[in-house]
């Protein structure tokens, strides 16, 4: 099955360090001196109200955005030091699904597989279609799929090249219970294989079952959500109250 990191590559990393990262858009501050660490084999949830800066943080981690201040290290190197190859170790499932509606499920996967230089493309794509449970609809246009099916396909697209760092923005959106359970199982599989998973979500109940650690972003500032007993939603609310106190 596709989706887990294969044998470590020479430029692989086992942790990501965010140090004092700030980002402004004009006069609006999206992130303010955010620091956090993510380790291999860990699923980190980034929680927070709408507009808190979660997607901005994921965008910066994905190298799509530059921080205004601060730095991110992928292992020992920054994105600038690691070069274009770094993006081959990052998989992103955005809120928008990064799929071409005019192409079939198989064509979408083959296209991105080629761009990422995936070896054994046919085998990898077949495995990804199986993982997405879309083998029987492999030659249907992605635009004809329901949101849930597209979400499953988009997840496999993001994992096609076996990334080390997996960034997920609201991955449970539009999924039915069965698909959400399937996604949770995929996330556990990624953790077992040593991926670093960072997930922005509002789906506390589903996330509670898979995440190892959570942080809360509010008004661009980060705060740890306490580990321990109690549902994630309650612990998040407590962290948010403390942050605003």
């Amino acid at each position, binding site marked *: 099955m596709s989706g887990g990191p294969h044998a470590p590559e020479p430029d692989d990393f086992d942790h990501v360090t965010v140090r004092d990262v700030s980002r402004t858009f004009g006069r609006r501050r999206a992130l303010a001196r955010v620091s956090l660490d993510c380790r291999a084999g860990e699923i980190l949830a980034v929680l927070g109200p709408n507009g808190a800066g979660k997607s901005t943080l994921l965008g910066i981690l994905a190298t799509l955005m530059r921080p205004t201040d601060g730095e991110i290290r992928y292992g020992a190197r920054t994105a600038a030091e690691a070069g274009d190859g770094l993006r081959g170790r990052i998989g992103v499932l955005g809120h928008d699904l990064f799929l071409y509606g005019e*192409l079939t499920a198989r064509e979408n996967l083959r296209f991105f597989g080629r761009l990422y230089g995936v070896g054994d493309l046919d085998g990898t794509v077949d495995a990804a279609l199986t993982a997405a449970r879309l083998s029987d609809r492999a030659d249907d246009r992605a635009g004809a799929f329901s949101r849930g099916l597209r979400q499953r396909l988009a997840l496999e697209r993001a994992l096609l090249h076996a990334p080390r760092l997996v960034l997920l923005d609201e991955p449970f959106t539009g999924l039915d219970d069965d698909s959400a359970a399937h996604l949770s199982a995929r996330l556990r599989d990624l953790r077992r294989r040593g991926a670093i998973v960072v997930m922005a979500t509002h789906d506390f109940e589903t996330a509670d079952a898979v995440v190892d650690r959570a942080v809360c972003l509010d008004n661009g500032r980060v705060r740890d959500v306490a580990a321990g007993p109690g549902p994630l939603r309650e612990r998040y609310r407590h962290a948010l109250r403390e942050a605003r106190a």
Partner: protein
Amino acid sequence: MTRTLQAAWTIARKDLRIEARSRELVYTTLFFAVACLLVFAFAFVRERPIDNAAAGILWVALAFSGTLALGRTFERERQGETLRALLLAPVERGAVYLGKLIALLLLMAAVELIVVPIVGLLFSAPLLRAPALLAGLLALGTIGFAAIGTLFAAMLVRASSRDVLLPILLYPMTAPLLIAGVQGTAAIFADEPNLALAENWLAMLLFFDAVVVTVALWVFGAVMTE
């Protein structure tokens, strides 16, 4: 370099596959260009066409229809935010630019294959007087126009007023190119052709293209990183 070219071709092939399936761009661009030519033909052709009209009308039709194609090709990448997905690929970001440029060039070339003979027919333009020179002018003019347009269209893909901004940015920047194209083509079509002059305009287009493509490849990655 090979990896960059491979990635560019992969992106171009994807665009062409989508276009072959929808035929949306080629139909809209072609119909728009032909409609332009017909309107101009009714306005400017009486017993014989006005001098130099054919050259100007040909380039106006190509520029306007090219703008239409530019906007739409990036609109596709905006749906589903697929441009971001392309920028996430582990290849030089210039490959994304090059891929989009190649696809647009092939599309515009397909439209020109139909539009240019129609210009010959409607405006009695002597297309076969210096066919290689004319093809060179059209090819280099199209490359320059598409090269600038691809860069601006990519930069504006997330701007809410992109439909307004694209022509505002594009036409002033491509004015030298369009002037060179019109003058070169007019020199070929004239009653007393001046092929040496047309060659000079061709050289200018070549220089323009070299500068534009180099600068675009250089800055594309930087301007696309938010």
